[in-house]
């Protein structure tokens, strides 16, 4: 059964090739079947492999499938090889399964779009690259997948390329993530120079043997890798691209910019956990970045008008929670939150997509309202996902994962009360902005009539994800409720065990109660200011603070002034630089020669004849006298 592992990335790649080569010639329906089907096959194989993995774990807890040797330069010989362990299993399950549901949804969402087969070609390429990323057994193959998903993100953000703004957003996403990727590439060079290999397992092993805790090389490598993770996962200070990435079609935002690609940074840090553990400073930086990002993005989400931008900031904020978890050493809590987040955030985006379809492709929440009774399936699934995002206690998946992170942020030896406060304030804000979105969109007076009712494919995707957003959390219960931790047990061998300094069921339940009260309070705050007393929120909307948050804390403005303007200025100055002059000079010379010679073509026969005569005389003179 493990032998099928290589098919998981390959099948979507084949789907991509078919759609890219013949997409223009095959029927829409067949293109849809190929696009959705290839990911479906991948998901099936993943489930088969996963069941096999859980039933009879391979020796040593991991399975490696070497396909072939990629190339060989001296001693450096990376291979195309896939590595399956608990961590990559969780990731490929989310990628292919949630990916399949989103593909199914897209088959209906995109049905009238001109670029239907192009869309599925890119989506399949994405699934192929993303599964390559998480299955790679060496960092070079991981980097290939890493750049592959970046490319797909670029292509899909700019999918509707006739609007110049979409192209701008796509370029922004590509360039900003490139900053992080450059840091990551340097990190990889450093690893090759130190160990002569990029094989993840051997790097982790050699690092744990040869690097002392707190050594500067461990710090450098982990900070460089963190740079890549920060860019990809849209964390501070490279978070500015994600809100603009919402220019792409909504299923793209669900798949790439919520559920999977943006969590590649979380995967990278979790995968390289040994290196990060060896450098407590780097790990603290990860936690601080996570805490700051979750607060900043949360406040920004409070003020957005565009429903997708709320979700984008919320994604940044939730990935901040994952970084916080990784930073305090609660590795499996981070992965757990990745999983529940993939379910409920994908569902929120898909629900938002259904709302956008139903509201004449409007994104502004203030022009929506009263959709509760008109779109019942969308409303109920959206409500479940929102409850999960806000982490309403006990009944939602998000509660279990977020609570685990908050508890570890306080109780772990690497945690602190400040990180916990950031997390708990973030939880309150999360609940406020989530229910602000729900109330604005689904409650109140109806402002726009319905233009589309979701059909079966959209409903299936919504209902399945709705179930998972509700039930996905029960696989792992808090310690204080008894030991039931399927996910942590699966990941136990991969991560160092968390070292709790505060223990006790009573304390943990006390903290859970605090967060429960705050979260429910957040719902009431949203209810009070949006439905009961909208005057205040309208006044707040005009305030400077609100505008500052709306613009994402002015980071775009800052980067524009600090990086873009000088870059444009210098390239203006250097527009006609010296090297260019040489090449344009050659061109100008050729044009000059052309003008001179074309003067001789006067069209007068007698001139031509004189030319011949003079030529003849010169030739004869040379022949006779020389």
């Amino acid at each position, binding site marked *: 059964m493990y032998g099928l592992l290589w098919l998981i990335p390959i099948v979507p790649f084949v789907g991509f090739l078919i759609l890219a080569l013949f997409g223009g010639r095959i029927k829409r329906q067949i293109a849809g079947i190929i696009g959705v089907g290839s990911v479906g096959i991948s998901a099936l194989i993943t489930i088969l492999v996963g069941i096999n993995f859980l039933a009879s774990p391979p020796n040593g807890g991991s399975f490696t499938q070497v396909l072939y040797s990629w190339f060989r330069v001296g001693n450096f010989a990376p291979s195309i090889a896939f590595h399956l362990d608990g961590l990559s299993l969780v990731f490929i399950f989310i990628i292919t399964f949630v990916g399949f549901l989103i593909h199914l949804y897209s088959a209906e969402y995109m049905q009238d779009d001109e670029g239907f087969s192009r869309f599925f070609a890119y989506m399949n390429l994405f699934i192929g690259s993303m599964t390559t990323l998480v299955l790679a057994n060496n960092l070079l193959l991981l980097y290939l997948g890493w750049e592959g998903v970046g490319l797909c993100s670029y292509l899909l953000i700019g999918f509707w390329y006739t609007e110049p703004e979409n192209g701008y957003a796509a370029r922004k996403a590509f360039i900003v993530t490139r900053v992080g990727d450059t840091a990551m590439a340097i990190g990889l060079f450093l690893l090759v120079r130190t160990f002569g290999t990029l094989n993840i397992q051997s790097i982790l092993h050699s690092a744990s043997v040869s690097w002392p805790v707190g050594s500067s090389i461990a710090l450098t490598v982990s900070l460089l890798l963190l740079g890549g993770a920060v860019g990809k996962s849209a964390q501070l200070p490279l978070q500015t691209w994600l809100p603009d990435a919402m220019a792409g079609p909504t299923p793209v935002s669900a798949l790439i910019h919520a559920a999977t690609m943006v969590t590649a940074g979380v995967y990278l840090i979790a995968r390289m956990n040994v290196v990060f553990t060896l450098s407590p400073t780097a790990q603290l930086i990860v936690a601080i970045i996570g805490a700051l990002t979750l607060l900043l993005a949360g406040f920004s989400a409070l003020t957005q008008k565009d429903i997708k931008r709320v979700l984008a900031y919320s994604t940044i904020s939730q990935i901040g929670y994952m970084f916080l978890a990784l930073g305090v050493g609660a590795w499996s809590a981070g992965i757990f939150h990745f999983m529940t987040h993939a379910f409920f955030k994908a569902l929120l985006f898909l629900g938002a997509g259904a709302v956008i379809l139903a509201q004449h492709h409007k994104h502004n929440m203030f022009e929506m309202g009263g959709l509760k009774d008109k779109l019942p399936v969308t409303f109920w699934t959206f409500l479940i996902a929102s409850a999960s995002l806000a982490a309403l206690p006990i009944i939602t998946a998000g509660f279990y994962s977020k609570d685990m992170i908050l508890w570890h942020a306080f109780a772990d030896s690497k945690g602190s009360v400040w990180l916990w406060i950031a997390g708990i304030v973030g939880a309150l804000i999360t609940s406020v902005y989530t229910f602000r979105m729900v109330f604005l969109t689904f409650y109140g007076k109806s402002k726009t009539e319905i233009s589309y009712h979701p059909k079966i494919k959209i409903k299936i995707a919504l209902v399945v994800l709705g179930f998972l957003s509700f039930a996905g959390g029960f696989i792992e219960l808090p310690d204080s409720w008894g030991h039931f931790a399927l996910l942590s047990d699966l990941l136990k061998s991969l991560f160092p065990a968390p070292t709790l300094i505060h223990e006790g069921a009573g304390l943990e339940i006390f903290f859970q109660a605090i967060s429960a009260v705050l979260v429910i309070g957040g719902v009431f705050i949203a209810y009070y200011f949006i439905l009961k007393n909208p005057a205040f929120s309208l006044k707040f909307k005009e305030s400077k603070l609100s505008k500052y948050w709306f613009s994402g804390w002015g980071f775009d403005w800052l980067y524009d002034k600090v990086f873009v303007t000088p870059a444009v200025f210098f390239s203006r100055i250097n527009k006609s630089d010296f090297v260019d002059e040489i090449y344009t000079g050659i061109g100008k010379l050729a044009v000059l020669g052309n003008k001179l*010679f074309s*003067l001789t073509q*006067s*069209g007068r*026969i007698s001139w031509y*004849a004189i030319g011949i*005569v003079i030529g003849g005389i010169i030739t004869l003179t040379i022949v006779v006298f020389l």
Partner: protein
Amino acid sequence: MANISVGTGLLLAGILFMLGLLGVLIRRNVIFILMSIEIMLNAAGLAFVVAGAKWSQPDGQVMFIFILTMAAAEVSVGLALILQIYKRFKSLNADNLNRMKG
């Protein structure tokens, strides 16, 4: 025949050639240009004949027959072209036919 020296013959041929060349260069009328070309061809032919006579070889006269034939063919093509030119442009002035200038 024998008392005409080679130098005289070649001089005559040279004068004829220069006359033809001047005609080509100076004349505007396409028909005159064609006639001047004929004169130049005949000058060349005369040079061949004189040279053939000098070495008592028949080659010079053979060449002249060739030139004559070629000149006939050239004139027929040339006259046909001139007819077309006249039909198209209603003029035979070579300086007006400068549409193909660079």
